[in-house]
């Protein structure tokens, strides 16, 4: 069975699994990292959104065989460490706005939010309505309004 080595939340991991198994299942079913959630397996709902080398990806759409040993995978569990704090400012904002209801989509929402802010910042602007229209994450509890408020309040804090 092929071996795959990459960095997960700051630690190097090696797994024995077939190349085509998507990263979501490698993390959840083999490595026991359960922050990223399954919501569709189709790259649609965005519940598994995590970061690959600092950019947002849907783990359900990344075959583990595509990873290189130098690749850095960050899930919600590893997000605070990227800023060297107990909680990322985006998570703090989520708590301040009391965003979650059932909470199932929220790890993906937060990982998306951080990436969208960084993307807008790299393009030299603050988040606009057009940016929010690109946030595709489903929240079946309907917390969208508070998500918006939380992102706007956190975008200058990291």
């Amino acid at each position, binding site marked *: 069975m092929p071996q795959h080595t990459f960095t997960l939340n700051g630690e190097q991991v090696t797994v024995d699994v077939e190349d*085509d198994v998507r990263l979501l299942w490698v993390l959840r079913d083999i490595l026991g990292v359960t*922050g990223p959630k399954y919501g569709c397996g*189709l790259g649609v709902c965005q519940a598994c959104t995590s970061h690959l080398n600092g*950019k947002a990806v849907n783990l359900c759409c*990344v075959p583990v065989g595509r990873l290189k040993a130098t690749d850095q995978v960050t899930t919600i569990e590893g997000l605070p460490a990227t800023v060297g704090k107990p909680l990322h400012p985006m998570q703090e904002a989520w708590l301040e706005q009391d965003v*979650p209801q059932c909470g*199932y989509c929220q790890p993906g929402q937060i990982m998306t939010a951080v990436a969208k802010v960084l993307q807008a910042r790299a393009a030299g602007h603050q988040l606009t309505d057009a940016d929010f229209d690109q946030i595709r994450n489903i929240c079946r*509890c309907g917390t969208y309004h508070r998500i918006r408020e939380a992102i706007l309040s956190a975008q200058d804090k990291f």
Partner: protein
Amino acid sequence: MDNQELGRRRFLGYVLAASTLTVAAQLGEGADRADAAVPSLPEPADLYDLNDLLTDAALPTANLITITLNPDGTASFALPRAEVGQGITTSTAMIIAEELDLPLDKVHVSLADARPELLFNQLTGGSNTTISTYTPIRVAAATARHRLLEAAAAELGAPLAALSVLQGVITAADGRSLSYAELAVKAGSLTDLQVSVTLKPASAFTVIGTPQNRIDALEAVTGRKQFAMDVQVPGAMPAMICRPPTINGTVVAVQNLAAVRAMPGITDVAVVSTGVAVRGRTFGQCIDAVRALQVSWGPGSEDRASDATVLAELRAAENPLVTPPLPLLTAAVDARFTFHFASNSALETNCAVADVRPGSAEIWASVKAPLVAQAEVAARLGLPVGAVTVHVTQGGGSFGRKLFHDAALEAAEVSQAMGKPVRLMWHRTDDFRHGRVHPMSTSRVRATYSLGQVLTMDQRHTSVATEFGHGLGDAITALAAKLPVGGLTFAETIFSLTQQTPYNFGVTTQLLTEVDNGFHTGSMRNIYSPNVRCAQELVVDRLAAAMGQDAYRFRRRFLKDPRAVAVLDKVAQVGNWGRAMAPGTGQGIALHPEYHGFVAVLAEIDCTPATVNRQVPDAVTGPRVTKVVCAVDVGLAVNPKGLEAQMTGGIMDAIAVTLTSSLHLAGGTFQEGSWDNYFYTRQWNTPPELEIIVMPPTTGTPGGAGELAVAGAMAAVACAYGRATGTMPTSFPVNHDAPPAFTPLPTVPPVPQSPTDGISRAY
């Protein structure tokens, strides 16, 4: 004891024999009459063996809910309800913190396993949790506080009346104090005791009625919150089902069992009642196996059905509206509405962990009727009820879905068939196509009016049958003789107990007719109300127009209850009702009474071409609800912040079912298979302006909140749409009959493969 306390009602609590202070109260006792749809009923039913009942009833703790005061000064409580996002663990912790005088963060609320001795008192539905548990939980907490005071009085040698309690610390007049941690063991009892207690007056509340954040928010934002699929049960490997191409199709033969068993990671393949089950190392490999299976399928239950055939069936079954000859000067408004199938799929798909052994079974799942789940799993496996343990996990949304336990039953069957523990999860595509749906329905409404008065309002609702086989049914059936409606079927009973007209419209009748049992149905954040209210409020707008009156003032004039008038006035004022609106935009206003509460909603919508034709990839943009103002009076909001969240969520649901989200039935299968087919509200549909107003307490006792907003908001959005376009909408969602906005996924294989282009789409 002060005079105020003397005049207050006393309740019976219990101190239970335990090594640390453990108190209890009878669930149901002293609580206000539960919401009519969900009576709390300690009567046996045949799903629960009489012998089991007698055994459990003999336990000293039968029917009790229990709070434990831990030696570290914290309190623990296992809530016999399901938390699926509605915030009841937080509101319950608040109620305990209030009555126990303990900081909120020292109260731990978990979810109780199935407790058969509670009979029907372990059902989460009908927005009933706080209504039915508010008083019993307070009684238990007050009992603990009383017992701690007694222990402190003995320890400090001070009279009980001279002690004060603040934040888990009891202080004597001379300043000496003891914490609950120091008293927890001393306050325990060697024998069970009965204690008579009074409850805090509302004027002394410092926690109840204050906005509090969810107690599980930190776990949610750090990814630590554990849902069923996150629970680590040794050996419970991923499992999925290969499902039929049409609803209720059956397995005739499998051509390649051995080949699929030999696929990478796969450990087991077995034919079960709902399809072919596979178990493997990862869900990804299960998906591969499901897709590789070559199965001959037998016909399903609705293979020839489509939206058109079901609609025809409904129309044929409609109870006729008989029109007597109208007297002189009397006119009528007559309308018919269609509400299409909709999905109550949560973001967490149907799932459960099952570990079935010879002679016993253990289940982990988010289920709102764990007692029924336990009984049905036992029956399916051929085990006594007592041999089945059901652990209620945190739920990733419900919206009616988790009243049923389809995945728990399936997981148990698969685990038994394979002789191994399984972690069974439905694929998203299956969750839409084979999961529960909210039934298609029609509503006919006729109102007559004369000389400024509405004389009659008749509503005939005709619906594909809603399944109630989840415990609510048994509770109602057992209580049927005592209900104020005789001679009705079960669904008609529910309908008549939940549907009401808030207006004085003379002679009012609302009747339900049901057809067709071939679908897997259930409620969807309300059973009938959003559709029934939406139809009625649209007709109210028509009546107002026909009688030359403003839609808000017309409603106000006919409302029966001052609480309804107050919320309506509030949204009209805050939402600036009647302001000048640009062409193609409009306002709508509506009211909904239910669950001992009232909600009013004012919505503004933009139906201009520039907005409707906005482009977002793989999306339906359509008309945009630009502003929503909602005022809610639930009698007493335990946690106003949680209530706001429930209203917000209900509004998002209402926007979806009014404008964009429905299932299209064709050839015995629903066409939708992904969130890019089923257009639930997304960021681009969210109203930019949203304001929720929680009214000050009115009745002093909490009403239901989880479902309340959907009906009011659906009606308001529909009325706004009618005003903006100049045409009353009559088919919902309004885009249902538009050309399909997606290409349906194949039905064989039943689930699509996951994409592989994730890295190229990184941002």
